[in-house]
């Protein structure tokens, strides 16, 4: 009864995969009941060398491709690309995630993915001190030639991206909305700047996201944290509350074998317990910048 049994494999019908056909198929898979990153990953890995278009009727994939093309045109996104699980230059490091994403959208300069990347993340409502620490940290990391990866949220994320740009460094934003939409709206300009001069990445399916409300779409924010962690050598948490989404990234960083750094100031905050909990599991307490430096890869020559 499974649909995919009736479809010829990509290899038999086409000489190669087409990114836009895969994009349409990915969107179609997401528009099925109960679809999640987990269910789609499971479908893709049931048989080797399966790509999204192997699982969707060609006419349906084409219909969704058109919907996405229209949505992008409407949002004035003229250039974008996709990466497909099992094909092209899908980043090997994303396979360390629990359920590697089947497809991602990007705008900007893909080659940044292969640079030395570190994530700087934290609360959406940081203290003045927290913002200052984020700035100092990013300055030092840029000086060491790291690409600063963050989630383009309010607060620490925004400070991280802006400081990287001010310091003439590189930055990647992994966002929890489609690449055609900015949230919060106040970051729209920054998002466009990153898409034009750096790299903007999203795994969020455009059609599904458009069809459901903000409440259902909230799930995409922590999911992008998992991807952000997988893309980077390590995650540095500047400041975060006890229920912060940042902690999703902390948990997955350790699970994926990435370095997790927590600034000392977090440990000194008596109202939260998570820093100690993660330290027990292997997170690195950062008292000075050198504590980060010695755990990350050396610069290229």
């Amino acid at each position, binding site marked *: 009864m499974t649909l995919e049994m009736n479809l010829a494999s990509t290899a038999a019908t086409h000489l190669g995969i*087409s990114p836009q056909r895969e994009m349409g198929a990915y969107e179609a898979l997401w528009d099925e009941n109960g679809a999640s990153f987990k269910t789609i990953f499971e479908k893709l890995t049931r048989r080797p060398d399966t790509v999204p278009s192997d699982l969707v009727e060609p006419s349906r994939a084409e219909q969704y491709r058109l919907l996405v093309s229209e949505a992008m045109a409407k949002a004035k996104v003229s250039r974008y690309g996709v990466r497909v699980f099992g094909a092209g230059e899908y980043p090997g490091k994303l396979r360390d995630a629990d359920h590697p994403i089947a497809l991602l959208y990007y705008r900007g300069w893909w*080659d940044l993915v292969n640079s030395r990347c570190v994530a700087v993340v934290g609360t959406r409502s940081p203290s003045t001190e927290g913002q200052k620490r984020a700035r100092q940290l990013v300055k030092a990391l840029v000086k060491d030639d790291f690409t600063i990866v963050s989630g383009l949220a309010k607060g620490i994320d925004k400070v991280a991206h802006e400081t990287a740009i001010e310091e003439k460094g590189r930055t990647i934003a992994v966002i929890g909305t489609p690449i055609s939409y900015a949230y919060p709206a106040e970051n729209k300009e920054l998002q466009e700047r990153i898409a034009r001069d750096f790299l903007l990445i999203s795994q969020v399916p455009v059609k599904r996201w458009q069809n459901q409300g903000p409440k259902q779409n909230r799930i995409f924010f922590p999911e992008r944290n998992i991807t952000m962690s997988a893309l980077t050598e390590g995650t540095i948490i500047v400041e975060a509350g006890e229920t912060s989404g940042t902690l999703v990234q902390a948990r997955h960083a350790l699970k994926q074998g990435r370095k997790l750094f927590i600034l000392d100031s977090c440990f000194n905050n008596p109202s939260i317990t998570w820093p100690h909990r993660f330290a027990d599991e292997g997170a690195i307490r950062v008292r000075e910048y050198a504590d980060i430096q010695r755990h990350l890869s050396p610069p*290229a020559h």
Partner: protein
Amino acid sequence: MPTSNDTFPRLLTEIDDLTRPDHSWLGAADQCLFLGEYTARKGFSFSATNQIILNFKKAADRRGRAEWRYKEQAIAEVGQAFGTALNPAWLGAATLVPMPPSKARTDPLYDDRMVRMLRAIPAVNPLDIRELLIQGQSMAAAHDADVRPTPDTIAAGYSIDEELAAPAPTLIGIFDDVLTTGAHYVAARRVLSRRFPGAKVLGLFIARRAPETSDFSVFFEPPDDE
């Protein structure tokens, strides 16, 4: 920096609406496919694709040096990769045509890597590999030229090796290493289509050149080869 699981792609990818604007000479009717994405000026360690391309294109004046074996390895690996990626029915029906090297046969820098790669494609029955296109005289590599050649000027330098023209091919795959603007492919396609009007022609590349980070030198300095 490639991670341990960064590998050269196993599947071919079609040039479609999402990537065609990166290759200015290609039109919607040009059917081109590639395996990896090559990132110029980033060196070997940047990605598995970069490593394969740079070894594959190692200049012929390095022959005899210890590093030469990496070129031989890359030629074998690419042959294997096309053998895996292309389905046997297509391989059995197609005439495989290497893009002619930029240097003429008599040039000391003549490099027959492409035809040797085609011969390294594993197949049950012998493949129809024909060096149908001849480069009349050595061209300056694209980056040495003052003005980048258009498909018309490139096509003017190509001729057909009539000794290999029969039987007339019906399905032609033109093989080249890196797809940049597409000018060489379009030139080759025109020359072959003119001589064999009934044949379906498509382009197969080891890699396409990826757009680079805010690197404006790309507008001034032509890519390292085509």
